[in-house]
């Protein structure tokens, strides 16, 4: 197995607060890694730094051998690293289909002149983007919602749409920030199933932040545990779940009833 994502010595300070403290870890090709830890441990901050929303105070991020530290988000997406958001995040006024088409922007960026005159190239890439969006919609089994406005969907559907928007960008590493937050047990089960089938079909790596421990256990090959921005464990799921420090810091205390 080869490491595709390499995070080295990442530190992120907000004023006096150290949200990430010399964090280092790797994600291998096709691997699913769980990133867990109590609220405020720095998981979302790690995503923000990896995806280019924040420039780290120090440390580096490499993806497939290229330094992507501090690059703007839109360039990191072009390397194949795509993230979702912890809260629901959709283009509220656009339809579900258009949301996913937008998510696939990197696949339909054509020249200015072709765009302006709706040239053959633009029509072709737009049609391809729509086809692909429809495929994703079918894969998620929400055909009946394809033309609904995203802002009017239920919370659960908006969360799922966020995932489809990210998938449309053809990631090779998907960063999922609490995809099951706020979903009930049945919905989380469905989502886990969906992530599994997507992973299998697309052969991508996933870095998953989640509190639903069943979901993590069923999906992940490996777990990384954060506490106060520091990595306190990294290994196979079964092993990490037994680690007394992890049980103390996180698993034993508050299970899956986070906000």
């Amino acid at each position, binding site marked *: 197995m080869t490491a595709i994502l390499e995070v080295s010595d990442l530190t992120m300070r907000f004023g006096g607060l150290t949200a990430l403290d010399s964090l280092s870890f790797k994600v291998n090709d096709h691997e699913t890694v769980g990133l867990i830890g109590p609220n405020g441990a720095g998981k979302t901050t790690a995503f923000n730094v990896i*995806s280019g*929303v924040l420039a780290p105070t120090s440390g580096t991020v490499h993806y497939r051998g290229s330094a992507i530290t501090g690059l*703007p*988000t*839109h*360039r990191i*997406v*072009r390397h194949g690293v*795509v*993230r*979702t*958001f912890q809260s629901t*995040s*959709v*283009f*509220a*006024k*656009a339809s579900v289909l*258009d949301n996913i*088409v*937008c*998510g*696939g*922007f*990197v696949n*339909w*960026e*054509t020249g*200015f002149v072709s*765009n*302006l*005159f*709706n040239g053959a190239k*633009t*029509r*072709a890439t*737009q*049609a*391809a983007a729509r*086809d*692909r969006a429809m*495929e*994703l919609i079918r*894969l998620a089994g929400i055909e009946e919602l394809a033309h609904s406005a995203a802002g009017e969907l239920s919370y659960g559907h908006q969360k799922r749409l966020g995932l489809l*928007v*990210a998938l*449309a*960008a*053809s990631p090779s590493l998907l960063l999922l920030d609490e995809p099951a937050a706020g979903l009930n047990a049945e919905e989380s089960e469905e989502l886990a199933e969906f992530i599994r089938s997507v992973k299998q*079909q*697309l*052969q991508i790596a996933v870095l998953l932040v989640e509190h639903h421990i069943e979901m993590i256990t069923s999906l992940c090959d490996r777990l990384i545990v954060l506490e106060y921005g520091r990595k306190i464990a990294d290994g196979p799921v079964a092993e990490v779940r037994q680690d007394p420090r992890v049980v103390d810091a996180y698993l034993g205390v508050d299970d899956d009833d986070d906000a």
Partner: protein
Amino acid sequence: MSELQQTNPVPATAKWKIPQEFLTAKSATYCALFLPLAALPLLIDSSFVYHIAILVCLNAIITSGLGVIVRVDQLSLAHGAFAGIGAYASALAVIKLGVPFLLSLVLAALAAGVAAVLLGRLVLGLKGVYFVLATFAFNELFRMIMLLLPEISGGTNGLSNIPAAEIAGLEISSKPGFYIFIALALAATLLVVWMILRSPIGRAFDAISGNLPLAQASGIPPRRYQILAFTSGSVIAGVGGGIMAAYVGFISPESFTFWFSVNTIIMLIVGGRYSIMGPVLGALLLTPLPEVLRSTGQLQQIIYGVCLIAILRFMPGGVSGLIDRFAELMSGRK
């Protein structure tokens, strides 16, 4: 490669087909509204009506430019300055270099475009109110620089010897001639704006204004599209300024104060900033207003302000928002 990553072959489409977007209840409503209206001045054939109609078209062109800029959630208070840059570029080219009128408009577009790219690179990183303030400062800067360069700008006296517009040897300074020219220019402007907004470029604009973090996470480079929107809109203002210089025959730095920008914003909001026709409606309603309200003296500003607040409060989509809703009702959708 997996089944999901394959792209399907694209069905061949006929080359010249009226785009679907044209054939909607909305566009039918606008055509029914505007085509007779556009013909009206020719039928009435009064010099005053021509004059108002020309100003409406001029304001509609300039406001359309601002309509493109606000698509990416940026409100420019420098719109007057870009109209001014275009006006001076065009007027100076005609006066000093004897450039033909149409070519002078190309120069106006270029000058405004270059200035917009430079200013855009500098200030488009700024958020919300800071961007508005920076554009306000630029508008004042433009006015001050022009006042400091009387050899170029004519200083406070302005440029008053701008020759009448001439196209292919045909003088269009007569009111009907200029009206037809500017109506066509407005139609061309609306067509260009429509082309930009219906294209993937417009999609990227909407994504950026709809949800910036998600747009970025989808790989859309916001700065590039913000500069594109700012530049396209400012170029349109520049062309409008060039046409204005030729029509009025006189420009000075005081023609392009920040109030020019504010009036443009008001027309856009009243007309409706979500629709391509919004600027036309705004210009149509507000351009004649000062003439109508002239007798009310000081009250004019108050009436203006009350109308604006009422529109902001009760019709956030402006007048075009109402028309869109009407068109939707007509086409049987809820």
